[in-house]
């Protein structure tokens, strides 16, 4: 599902409401028919949220960052191969402060490959990513959907994924009641 809307219309707010990092002033979010306040920890095990800030520690290497962000049971090989898939082969041991903005984003996006979460909440995931990267991500997203996962992505780009539904966020709308 793709969230569209003008700048400042509330796309990020909507996604953050869905992570429950923000509390809705009215309305509630339901997961599998249950209010997420009732099953917050179970719900949060199922979500993967990528916000504007990639959450990458500049003093850690790409590999350490990803190991840190992945589930504890992730095998070291899976981490290395996820980084290689995102075009970071050879940068595993480089401290992230010497990587570019697009590479930071790629480190964060490598989480998509190591995570077992069912619901991906991606806020502008393609920022600073080149064309090949976008194509690869769309492929990942398609695969995740084929495996029965759900994706909510806010982006201004048209996605090359089959069966995308679009929501438009309008500034006056009550996003909390979604």
């Amino acid at each position, binding site marked *: 599902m793709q969230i569209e809307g003008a700048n400042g219309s509330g796309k990020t707010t909507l996604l953050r409401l869905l992570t429950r990092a923000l509390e809705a002033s009215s309305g509630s979010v339901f997961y599998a028919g249950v209010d997420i306040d009732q099953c917050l920890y179970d719900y949060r095990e199922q979500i993967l949220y990528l916000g504007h800030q990639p*959450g990458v520690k500049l003093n850690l290497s790409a590999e350490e960052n990803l190991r840190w962000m992945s589930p504890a049971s992730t095998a070291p090989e899976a981490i290395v191969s996820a980084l290689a898939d995102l075009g970071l082969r050879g940068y595993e041991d480089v401290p992230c402060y010497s990587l570019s903005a697009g590479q930071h984003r790629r480190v964060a996006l490598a989480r998509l490959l190591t995570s077992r979460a069912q619901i991906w909440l991606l806020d502008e995931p393609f920022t600073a990513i080149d064309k090949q990267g976008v194509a690869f991500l769309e492929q990942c997203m398609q695969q995740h959907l084929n495996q029965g996962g759900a994706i909510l992505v806010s982006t201004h780009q048209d996605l090359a994924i089959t069966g995308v539904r679009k929501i438009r966020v309008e500034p006056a709308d009550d996003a909390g009641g979604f």
Partner: protein
Amino acid sequence: MSNAHNAGFTGYLQRDLLLAYRRHGEAASPLIFFLLVATLVPLGVSPEAGRLEPLAPGIIWVMALLATLLSTEGLFASDYQDGSLEQMIIAPQLLAMPVLGKVTAHWLVTGLPLTLVSPIIGIMLSLPSDGFIPMMASLALGTGCLSLVGAVGAALTVSLRKGGLLLSLLVVPLYMPVIIFGSATVQAGIDGLNWFAPLAILGAMLATAVALCPLAIAGALRLVSSN
């Protein structure tokens, strides 16, 4: 479930220790501050042992407090800026556990080294030899309190760009009992009194802080991130 809580505590403890190791210059700054200011006191007051002696417990404690305060401001700042704080908040675990892990790492990087180098400062300030053990014991417990209480202030001021002054205003009143009983422990040791009594009160304060501060910090972080 309990496993997940553990992962939050040890995971963040390890990560913050690794980060401190990578930025060791920055991590060592409270310690260097502690040592540098201690060298100034004999120059400013008098190098005579007789005049330094009565001041030593108080001065050591004030400097330990300032050194801890100096390092507390950055406790959540970089996590807030790079977005990992938000990831911590939405992680499927009790937020108090990663918070406690971070504060423990902070204590291991500031409070523990301060405690370990304090005998050097004791010598510089001509602290009587009976005061050394009480000083180290009280600093070990007291800096733990300082880290925990300071972290509450750091969490509340994390979204402010220049939160340093506000942090001091928030936290210093709460530091007062720690410094009173901390220097009282050292003084009691010097006077040959039973210094376990003030130390026990410090221990009680630490126990209370360990139980309550992580919850307060978690609440403050949620509040800040929901703006």
